[in-house]
């Protein structure tokens, strides 16, 4: 069955430090993959997406992610974290063709220390 796993429930990093959030997926083919961010009281905002082509994708707010087929992973990275990056991050894949049904992981809550 299609699924998304985010192994880290909670991560704390210092401001200015680098960040990597892990995401693994299970899917029968190459999926469309996404990272969303959710701030308290806010809806989900799309950070970046991978459909095909270059396996390193750039997103908004200085985030990037790398698709690794051999590891079934799509990890999110940022070289220098800002206090405003504190939020919950969700990895997701699309299943269902034209219906665009999103399957989400359980999320990683990021805390940023001053």
């Amino acid at each position, binding site marked *: 069955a299609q699924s998304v796993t985010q192994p880290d429930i909670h991560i704390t990093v210092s401001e200015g430090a680098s960040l990597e959030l892990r995401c693994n997926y299970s899917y029968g083919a190459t999926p469309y993959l996404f990272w969303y961010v959710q701030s308290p009281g806010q809806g989900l*905002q799309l950070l970046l997406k991978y459909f095909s082509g270059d396996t390193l994708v750039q997103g908004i707010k200085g985030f990037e992610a790398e698709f690794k087929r051999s590891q079934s992973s799509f990890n999110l990275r940022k070289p220098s974290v800002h206090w405003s990056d504190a939020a919950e991050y*969700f990895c997701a894949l699309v299943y269902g063709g034209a219906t*665009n049904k*999103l399957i989400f992981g359980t*999320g990683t809550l990021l805390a940023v220390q001053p």
Partner: protein
Amino acid sequence: DAGVTQSPTHLIKTRGQQVTLRCSPKSGHDTVSWYQQALGQGPQFIFQYYEEEERQRGNFPDRFSGHQFPNYSSELNVNALLLGDSALYLCASSLAGGSSFNEQFFGPGTRLTVL
């Protein structure tokens, strides 16, 4: 250009009651999807509406039903509420188009608490 809007922001109901949540899609979008996000979980797909019909449904009981109006806005109805229905309900809109993915834009959600 207003994004996706949802109402109400918060709602408190008791077990057994019925609730209706509303969603207005982003301008120009014709497809609305609903997701349930329980505390500490990722959103789970409930169903999607296009051309006023349910196009696909997730693993939710028939107590969950929906409707899409000619102006593309949508309602989510939940009957016979259970404590486990307490969650953030997210609406997402998109533009239908062929077999390719069209980005879904999410609203801020409605927080439903069932007592």
